């Protein structure tokens, strides 16, 4: 086991902490752009993890995936979102239904919850508990963001976080799926973000606001 491998392993083991940090920060963030930045950071951590994992298993595929994630999740999507925020010229706060402090506490609670949630599965799923917990935590916070943040864009961010979680779970349990699949998944994500951006503009044009909790014409 060479130096790089051990480094990678240590990196992996500790990376969970970084993720939890990003989660808490996103929960605390007041401005959309901050969240986007944090998301980008989060993706970066995950990229690092992929790199590390693939270094450990000497899989070229892994590096390819890492490169792809880097380009798409760390660079492309956050950039696109920034552009949208710029374009929208709308108020940029996340307009949360919970105060930042509450959000942080809830996020922390979710992280703890995720630890308890994964414990019974560690045996079954294998993989590193911290990483699994991080994955679940990401999924949960993603959901939490989508439920609590009223801005359309924040729902996109929440979705992205949730997606990161699932991606991480895949990584933690199976060291990545076949390349083609991964590519397809990421491509879908890209298209999805593009479409959502489109709809965000449409919402702005038709309703003159971006508050999804006010879209309640269709009910019953």
């Amino acid at each position, binding site marked *: 086991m060479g130096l790089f491998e051990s480094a990678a392993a240590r990196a992996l083991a500790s990376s969970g902490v970084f993720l939890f940090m990003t989660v808490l920060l996103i929960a605390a963030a007041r401005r959309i752009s901050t969240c986007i930045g944090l998301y980008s950071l989060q993706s970066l951590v995950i990229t690092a993890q992929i790199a590390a994992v693939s270094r450990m298993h000497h899989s070229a595929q892994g590096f390819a995936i890492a490169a792809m994630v880097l380009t798409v999740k760390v660079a492309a999507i956050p950039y696109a979102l920034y552009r949208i925020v710029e374009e929208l010229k709308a108020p940029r706060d996340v307009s949360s239904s919970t105060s930042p402090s509450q959000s942080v506490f809830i996020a922390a609670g979710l992280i703890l919850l995720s630890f308890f949630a994964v414990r019974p599965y560690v045996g079954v799923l294998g993989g590193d508990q911290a990483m699994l917990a991080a994955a679940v935590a990401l999924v949960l916070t993603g959901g939490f963001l989508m439920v609590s943040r009223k801005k359309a864009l924040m729902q996109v961010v929440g979705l992205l976080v949730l997606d990161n979680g699932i991606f991480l779970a895949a990584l933690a349990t199976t060291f990545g799926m076949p390349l083609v699949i991964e590519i397809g998944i990421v491509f879908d994500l890209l298209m*999805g973000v593009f479409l959502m951006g489109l709809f965000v503009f449409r919402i702005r044009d038709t309703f003159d606001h971006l508050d999804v909790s006010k879209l309640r014409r269709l009910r019953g």
Partner: protein
Amino acid sequence: MILLLPLFIPLAGALFVFLCRNPRVVVRAALTTGALELAAIGVTVNSIHSQGVLTAGRYLRADGLTSFFLISLGLIFALVLVYSSGYLRHVPEGRFSSLRWFYGLVFLFLFTMVAVYLSANLGMMWIFVEATTLASALLVGFYNTEGAVEAGWKYLIVCTVGIAFALFGTIALYLAAVKGGVSPESALDWGTLMAAAPGLVGGHELLKLAFVFVAVGYGTKVGFVPMHSWLPDAHAEAPSPISALLSAVLLNCAMYALLRFDAITSRAIGTGFSHTLLLIFGGVSLAVASLLMIVQRDLKRLLAYSSIEHMGIVAIGVGLGGALGLYGALLHTFNHSIAKTFLFFTAGNVREKFGTLRMERIRGMARSLPWTGGALILGALAITGMPPFGLFVSELLILTAAFSTAHYFIAVLMLAAISVVFGALLHHFQSMVMGKPEDVPVRPALQASWFVVMGVCVLCLVVLGVHIPAAFAAVLRGAMAVLQPAVLQP
């Protein structure tokens, strides 16, 4: 290589349509592409039945189940194309909402769905199911009205979230397969998994986990309660042909994915878990949807809830399992597709003539629009499972399955729910068809295309209601053989 055809044609069609500007050309191109696609599907289905399982490369695969769903897809899609050729005369020109955008997106939508049916790899299937959402989101928001945008947004977000869970489920299954000793390369390959399924008992917990996530994920797309919330909005706000596509094809598409997973799970760890889950989802959807149908005010929302109800019935059929249950479920997806298409087309006419879908504003169609009114009544009878229409047979089949497996609670629930639905539809439709027309609406003559489409629908429904053709029965048996290699066919 045949399998590439039905994938390639829609893509090409979409591309061409996007490029050309003249609307008349667009319609012609669309119809041509549709005809070609139909031919391609025909060829595919035919060769499936001559050669059994078709494969192309590692990622394309077609078997009996595929052919069954391809047939219903082809039929409905052809109907939709013909109908829209007469329906879409006035399109709000705007960003992403012009005739060519319509047809272009429709063909992309078609492509993604065909791809779902043809993909051999569960991961790839997931990718394309997600893609169907993306392709149809713009179509849902096509009219660009407040409602349309809202519906589109909800559709996009809710379905994406749901599908994300399906991805997790897929991963879990993959993991189970890998742990079960399947080579990571082919661990998402349905054929391989089906073959290896009995050996996966080790990953018992994992498979359960996988199926829960998949059920919630694809269930969102199928429209199971409580993940159904997007469905009424999308169906109500989309243009009628698109509503028909969503309800009659897309839901089946998601159901198809669910069927594939269910087959593997039940083969690996027995039918107990997955079927119970399906029964729960089906029962809840059936009960809730049937009740909600009583209090609807918008015609297309009503129809959307009826779709939920029927997907619930299908889920129950699958959940009951056995030869009868599955047979009934498959037959029911087919019948429901046709009947629902018929109804959405009728609803399209109503909207065109009355300019609204609020049912309390629609009165006296029997006098003002006899044909549409008649169609509405026929459709209602068909969708509530009255003879001589096909749904009577399939619902009776599923009931038979319920009784013969002593699932009396499910049976009673189904009978009760169907009665409630009957009452609801009767209540709404009677008041629309009967009574004095408040304002005699403008009556542009019905297009010949409309009569053709409606005629075909009624014909199919009645034929399936009184006598199931041997060829079609063979297709059904083929589909069942794929899902239940063990069970003997009815």
